[in-house]
């Protein structure tokens, strides 16, 4: 383990200056000082990481207890014997398999709608020049920052007028219209970085804009499309407010809705089952996260650092 500043000091390096010589003399004192600092920093980070992970461990541990041991003190971190039956009981008490199927339907329709519509619009913003483009792009940015909750009530009124209450249409149809400002923004930024030469060559060969979009830009944009796909899954799978407002039939509920109802008065004391259900809902997201971690971080950083 080398100290933090050494590699960077070498990177500007070159011939030894009086400065680096003076540093060498005081290095011994600094080294032990630095080692202490690094240990303290490392311990703090470990402590924080424990605080972050403890709820997960508690959730899994509770989900494997029976209805009595879940209330035991001191708690058993590794339930003996582990009560795997909870994961079966969850599906017996509430039809979670139906909720999962419903949610996956919404997820898939959203993926199709958003990947298609957002990339289509982004192509226009990133690769074409036309009057009024900057105006419309500023509207994309504006709607991105706007607090979405504010339109919840009038949107509900509109959708109920259209007869969309207790259907999946409120979660699917709007996505086909542009796929969300954030996704358009993210893809536009990415499309701008793609080289112009390929598209120009295709144009000379008589390719139209739609062919260039579909055959050249989309295949090159796989990393950005993956980022959008990951966030689309996450948003559709995790959405709670939408289903809460629009769905009213049990057979149509999503996982989030089913889990929220599961917490109703009847099961208030069955924390073992509640935790098993919560784990069931969380595991797909965590699996996705471990495989697509890079895309998550990319997307989040994109919103925060680019302007």
């Amino acid at each position, binding site marked *: 383990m080398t100290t*933090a500043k050494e590699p960077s000091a070498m990177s500007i390096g070159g011939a030894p200056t009086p400065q680096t010589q003076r540093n060498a003399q005081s290095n011994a004192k600094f080294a032990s000082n630095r080692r202490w600092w690094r240990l303290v920093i*490392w311990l703090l980070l470990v402590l924080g990481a424990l605080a972050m992970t403890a709820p997960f461990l508690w959730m899994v541990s509770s989900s494997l207890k029976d209805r009595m041991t879940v209330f035991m003190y001191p708690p058993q971190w590794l339930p003996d014997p582990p009560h795997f039956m909870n994961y079966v009981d969850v599906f017996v008490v509430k039809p979670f398999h139906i909720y999962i199927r419903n949610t996956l339907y919404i997820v898939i329709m959203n993926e199709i709608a958003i990947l298609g519509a957002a990339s289509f619009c982004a192509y226009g913003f990133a690769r074409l020049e036309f009057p009024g483009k900057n105006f419309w792009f500023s509207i994309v940015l504006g709607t991105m920052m706007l607090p979405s909750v504010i339109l919840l009530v009038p949107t509900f*009124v509109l959708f109920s007028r259209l007869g969309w209450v207790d259907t999946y249409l409120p979660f699917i149809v709007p996505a086909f219209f542009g796929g969300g400002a954030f996704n358009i923004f993210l893809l536009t930024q990415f499309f701008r970085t793609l080289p112009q030469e390929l598209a120009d060559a295709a144009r000379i060969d008589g390719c139209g804009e739609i062919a260039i979009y579909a055959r050249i830009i989309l295949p090159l944009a796989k990393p950005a499309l993956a980022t959008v796909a990951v966030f689309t899954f996450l948003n559709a799978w995790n959405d709670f407010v939408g289903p809460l407002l629009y769905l009213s039939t049990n057979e149509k509920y999503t996982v989030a809705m089913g889990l929220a109802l599961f917490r109703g008065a009847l099961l208030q004391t069955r924390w073992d089952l509640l935790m098993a259900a919560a784990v069931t809902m969380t595991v797909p997201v965590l699996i996705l996260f471990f495989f697509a971690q890079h895309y998550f971080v990319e997307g989040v950083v994109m919103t*925060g*650092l680019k302007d």
Partner: protein
Amino acid sequence: MAMTTSRFGHLRPNTSARRKTLMGYLFISPFILGFLLWFVAPTLTSVWMVFQDWNIMSPPRFVALENFSTIFGDDLFWQSLKVTAIYTLLSVPVGTLLSFSVALLMNTKVRGINIFRTLYYLPVVVPAVAGSILWAWMLNTEFGFLNILLRAVGLPKVRWLVDPNLALLSLTIVSLWGIGSTMVIYLAGLQGVPDLYYEAAEIDGAGRWAKLRHITIPLMSPVILFNVITGVIASFQVFTAGYLITGGGPDNATLFYVLHIYRTGFKNFHMGQAAALSWVLFVIIVALVALIFRSIGGSIYYGGKES
């Protein structure tokens, strides 16, 4: 749209320019349609609703500004405003401080930085419903994890969610579980600060604190400002935690503003009042963002930012 194209076609009577314009608008048309249908239409509906006494079932009745006098005369409105303001004042500064500190610690080239980053980010992807139920169990007075910890070190039980004076604080703690989302942004920003700056400062004899104050924080200030603003906007829209963990209680101690909108519109069916409440929220958020810009926007450093 047709008007725009013909107007610009007239300005530049060149068919290829006109085709280009048409193509551009073809590509961004899903967004324009979506903007009109899911943004302009609900906004106009909302403006109309504000002046109606309407329960969605029976015909609306024009009541002029009565909805506003009703909502402002309601103690629950002021309570929800107070709750949301306190929650924002607690969670945004503490969250910013914590996530920035964690990012600083991680940026010291510690061992296992990728593992740390993953562990700190993990809670962000957990579905809000699953996370809320998990924390309801973590903060359970009799058998929750936090009180088991306190008991293990000989401290008395804390009535996290039951005590009206503590419930909001408890939900703030829950919100800190999600600092990973901004931490990742800060970390990416910190990694973009050139080592050269720190080395130059070291030559001038700057210590850790001086480097943080005069290099890191000024360079990171645009990112901090962005995160504070999005943090305030998000915390004024908090709903799920209040709805599922505490149900707004005890004694309305966690009646978030959006929960108040939800109850007004979708439980008591005062759609006009709910629309009025939404507009008030919009004005509050815009005013707050403007205030933040005016008070700290001037001290933001944009000069040396790399893009």
